[in-house]
């Protein structure tokens, strides 16, 4: 019964071209498949995939104090396999990572790493400081670029707010 409700939420987001899912709700996005267009141009309002069809963007809108604004990145696991990491930037900055995925349902999970300047290396932050939720299920499309935005509000309970949309032309 719960899964049906989740699917309903995700499907609604996909149909509207964008959705916001708060806190611990797992998310499934679904969409129809079509052939990719190498030119990246289609007749619809959405941009066609070229090098990637899924883009994850992560930022933290709650960090406003430079002293608290740490350099960080997010390690990304796709379907439980390490698939790469985001760009590196301040917590307040957008960090992104792109993937080209086949049509299917996928699980994406993130792990946050911050810079320990004394040690000269990035370290995984404690589980309690990881975004909650730190994962999302989604369906990738090969004729649209899915934008998954994670707003990790580290200064207010580490809630992870996922926003889903398709990249427009």
């Amino acid at each position, binding site marked *: 019964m719960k899964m049906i409700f989740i699917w309903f939420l995700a499907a609604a987001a996909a149909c509207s071209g964008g959705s916001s899912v708060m806190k611990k709700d797992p998310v499934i996005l679904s969409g129809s498949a079509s052939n990719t267009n190498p030119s990246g141009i289609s007749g619809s309002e959405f941009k066609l995939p070229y090098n990637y069809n899924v883009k994850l963007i992560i930022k933290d809108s709650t960090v406003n104090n430079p002293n608290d604004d740490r*350099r960080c*990145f997010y390690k990304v696991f796709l379907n439980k396999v*390490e698939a*790469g*990491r985001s*760009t*590196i930037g301040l917590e307040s900055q957008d960090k992104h*990572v792109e993937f080209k995925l086949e049509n299917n349902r996928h699980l994406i999970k993130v792990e946050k*790493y911050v*810079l320990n*300047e004394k040690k*000269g*290396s*990035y370290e995984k932050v404690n589980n309690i400081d990881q975004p909650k939720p730190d994962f999302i299920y989604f369906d990738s499309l090969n004729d649209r670029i899915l934008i998954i935005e994670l707003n990790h509000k580290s200064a207010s309970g580490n809630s992870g707010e996922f926003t889903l949309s398709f990249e427009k032309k």
Partner: protein
Amino acid sequence: MKYILLLLIIVFSAECSRKIQFEVEPNNNLNEANEINIKSEVKGKISSASDKDYFTFTTDSEVNVRIEVSALKGINHAFGVFSASGGEGAVIKYVDDARKSSPEKIANLNLPKGKYYIAVSHGERDEKKGDDSAEYILSVYPSDSSVSEIEPNDFFDSAQKIDYGSEITGYFSPAFNKLNQNSKGRYREEDIFYFSVDASEENPAVIDISLSAVKGINSVIEICDADGNSVFTADFAGEGKAESVSGLGLMKSGNYFIRIYSKSMTENSEEKYFFSLKKGDFSPDRELESNDDFGKANPLQDKISGTVSDSKDIDYFFRSSESGRFYSVSVLGKSVKASIFDKSYRKLYSSDNASGSIIFPNIFCDGGYYISVSSKHTSEPQDYTVSISEYEAEKEFETEPNDSIKSAEAVENSVKGYYSYSGDKDYYKINLGSREKIKFKIRGIDDTEMTVSVTDALGYRVKTVSVKGSSEIEFSETIDVSAYLIVEFSGSVSDSDYSIDMIKQR
């Protein structure tokens, strides 16, 4: 028991019956000098501040004598020895230890046939005051017949000749030589010897010198050329230890001087030193002292052996090198340290590998480089051998020094490197121009644990993997346009290489 008692009585009686002659005042000038004999003792007093007691004796032939004036409580006294022919102005030896209440003595003074005077007076230190109640005993005896040092041998013009293969026996006595006004060793008692050398730069004379240990003496051996310029100084061992010079190379013909002295101006009139000089054969495979600084570095081709006396002794070698070639330098020695310097004397590598084998596997230095070897031990001499192998440089090999972000070497697709010395780190810079995911394939080194870190553009580690032994591992990491690779090591330094391949992933 009865016999022992009888023996004690006889000895005691003999001691009581020992009559010591007393000085006859006035004896305050040469003409009034009291006559004494060698093998005699005489008592005297320094009655007033200006009192000076003169004694005279005659030698029928050349003789080595030991002269001693016993301590006078609270008084610093001294004595001078001079010949009748030279007069009081030509003092052969002036003995003054500059201390109160201590005896003045010289263990060995060589006197040719003739008439001599001894003048006992106040020393130069402290207030001159007489003491009519205190007596000194002046004793003059032949010294140990085994002594072959000919005192006075305190200056270059009175230096004693020493032949190759011979041994000289002498004393660090007296404590001071007030006649020595040399600014580098004022008042220092020195024994100076000389020897002749026939040598050239192509065929240097190789000299070994050894000086035995003497209790309480921190001895120094200094070799000077004919002009008095110091060529080499051996001051490696501490107090009560033997000192030596091994493999000193002399490239000019002529006379050389050896100066022996006690570093802290202490004396020992009881224990003799044994001092010897040997001449060895020159071999280009053996170090030539002095090679203690860059300017005196020994030229080195493929192999050379040497000895470092202690932690203060450093041996330098120079190896010329060609562009486009690299060199592997190994230093085998039980307890030695080694360093490599470029021609500007900038230290490139340093290692004190405890295993007894130091390897610098890849030295690239146009024009040449220096190798220094020193001992980790404070006093024990350490033997070592330096060997060099030369190779054609391969393009993908690292170029040291690359031990920091500043000196990171730019790499593209692959690189090979070495664990060059203990504490070695290799930094590489990756500059892709765009954000790329890279697969890294790494092959390690036998008996070495390696860690490889991929950093961000600022050099902060993003991912670190370890590679044990010569195993191969693969991992992927995203590079945000540019990054650094940092390779670190633990385990044994090796002359085997590691490799890193970088493959772009789609």
